[in-house]
């Protein structure tokens, strides 16, 4: 990255840091959504972007993380800071299981993607029938009124949640960078580009791929924990839905798969786009159900047709934020 890029990035970080001090509640809530999608997009990027494993069922890990931490809190009074470890373990176990089945039996490409969808759908239907966790009627974390900011139990104001998710995004960014420049990261890139060649030079494909799934699912589960305590309600039809899985992967794809900044940039493009569309539709008074999603679909097609490698690599070159083309980290 050039000096210009670093300065711009630092400025953006600073802006995000002081945003709740100057912005109103609405802006903070939109920013929280943006950062949430940026975070899970980064988590997904570890699988698809770094190691070339297309998962279309990441809602599974969000949901498992959310339900695990919420169940521990509601049924056993165990707080989220302990619960998140369980949540991560549960999601990781699920991810490794799917990965094990998929890689063990040589399920590749489209088939692997469908396997991930299938497991997410199975979880959705299963949780719909799990009465202990509220079933299809939803699972709720009690809201204890105005008790001030309680970071220990993750109860409090929107500002608290904003800073928690901001910390998660920065943490994931740092982790992604470290991983990408580690031995494992180079193995992932090799596998993504040319699995046969990677195997020929001695990369253990199975182990590296499982590692990618484990990291990605555990990180995604943290996003689920955040979601559970931020919204205080969980419905299988939403949390595990195919639509949610797609929402998770869009920011990374729009921003630029395999890049560090891509998922974050993508979230900053898509969520405000959605909010802006809602606003425009309300102002114009021309409200039809589906109109917003229709524009969303059009935007998606336009982006993928004109910026197939994502917006970030192109933007970084245009603004001279990175040195050489292709070296977009």
């Amino acid at each position: 990255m050039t000096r210009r890029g670093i300065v711009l990035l630092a400025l953006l970080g600073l802006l995000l840091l002081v945003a709740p001090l100057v912005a109103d509640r609405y802006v903070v809530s939109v920013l929280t959504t943006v950062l949430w999608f940026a975070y899970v997009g980064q988590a997904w990027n570890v699988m698809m972007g770094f190691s070339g494993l297309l998962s279309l069922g990441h809602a599974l890990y969000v949901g498992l993380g959310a339900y695990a931490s919420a169940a521990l809190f509601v049924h056993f009074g165990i707080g989220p800071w302990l619960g998140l470890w369980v949540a991560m373990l549960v999601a990781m176990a699920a991810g490794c299981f799917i990965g094990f089945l998929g890689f063990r039996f040589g399920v590749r490409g489209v088939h692997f993607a469908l396997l991930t969808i299938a497991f997410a759908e199975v979880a959705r239907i299963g949780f719909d029938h799990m009465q202990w966790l509220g079933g299809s009627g939803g699972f709720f974390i009690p809201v204890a009124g105005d008790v001030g900011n309680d970071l220990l139990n993750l109860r409090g104001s929107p500002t608290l949640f904003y800073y928690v998710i901001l910390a998660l995004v920065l943490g994931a960014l740092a982790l992604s960078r470290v991983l990408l420049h580690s031995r494992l990261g180079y193995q992932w890139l090799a596998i993504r580009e040319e699995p046969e060649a990677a195997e020929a030079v001695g990369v253990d494909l199975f182990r590296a791929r499982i590692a990618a799934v484990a990291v990605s699912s555990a990180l995604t589960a943290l996003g689920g924990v955040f979601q559970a305590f931020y919204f205080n309600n969980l419905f299988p039809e939403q949390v595990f839905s195919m639509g949610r899985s797609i929402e998770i992967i869009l920011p990374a794809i729009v921003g630029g798969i395999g890049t560090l900044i891509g998922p974050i940039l993508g979230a900053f493009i898509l969520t405000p786009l959605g909010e802006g569309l809602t606003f425009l539709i309300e102002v114009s008074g021309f409200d039809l159900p589906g109109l917003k999603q229709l524009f969303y679909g059009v935007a998606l097609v336009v982006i993928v047709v004109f910026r197939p490698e994502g917006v970030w690599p192109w933007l970084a070159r245009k603004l001279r934020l990175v040195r050489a083309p292709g070296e977009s980290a």
Partner: protein
Amino acid sequence: MPLDYYLNIAASGLLNGLVYGLAALGLSVIFGVVRVVNFAHGEMMVAGMYGAVLLAGFIGLDPILSAPIIALVLFAFGWGLQRGLVNRFVERPEHMQFILLLGIATIILNAMLMLFGPDSRNVQVPYGFDTVEVGPLLLDAVRLRAGAAAIVVAAALFAFFRFSRPGKAIRACADNPLGARVVGLNIDGLYAMTFGIGSAVVGIAGALMTLLVDARPQLAPEYTLLSFIIVIVGGLGSLPGALLGGVLIGMSEALAGFLLTPSLKSLFSYAVLIVVLLLRPQGLLGRRS
């Protein structure tokens, strides 16, 4: 007596499954040749359903008779889609094709939501409540006709690919695109034709489906996933496999809905999918590539 129950349920599941299989056939044709997974498949199917609803509402046409008209419209749509957008994505990575077709699916789905609203619409046919007795079986006339029509269309499709010149050319494309180009076939044109045929087939499946269920936009993603399951179970690129997979899934849905609760019926389909992916990833009738 219980055996009769099971037979009846299996038979109605089989007839439903033939229509599912026809829809999946469309997906299989497109994937087998163009190598693009049509994530807008269920959306096209529901578009076919609305076509049948409209034709029945305005000119009182039976869905089976409106199927050819719908097929023409969807052929044109699929052809144009491949020419205009999908063709430039054929060589690109899977996730990009996925995003493109997802965007298209979103557009179709929400356009239908805006045009027709979220409520279900149905088609009234004079034989709507008739039943036909075959031995111990008591079959709904609508199901019987829909299943029979599905078989006729599937047979026509098989004949097209086996005997006609364009059908053979398309198969050549599927086998070896480079070789097909070398012998002078117009690959882009054949791809567009294939996408059109796949879309037409799923449109017909949609029209037939209106005999069995009410049309509503929300069905679209379900049908997309259902078609995927069927195609994977039967074997990607295998046309008989798609029909077989459809019948299997249709029957398992019907039996699961009867033995367990109806809301668990798709769990059963996913279980079948997972087992097949693990034990026979190429599908029941697929060949290992």
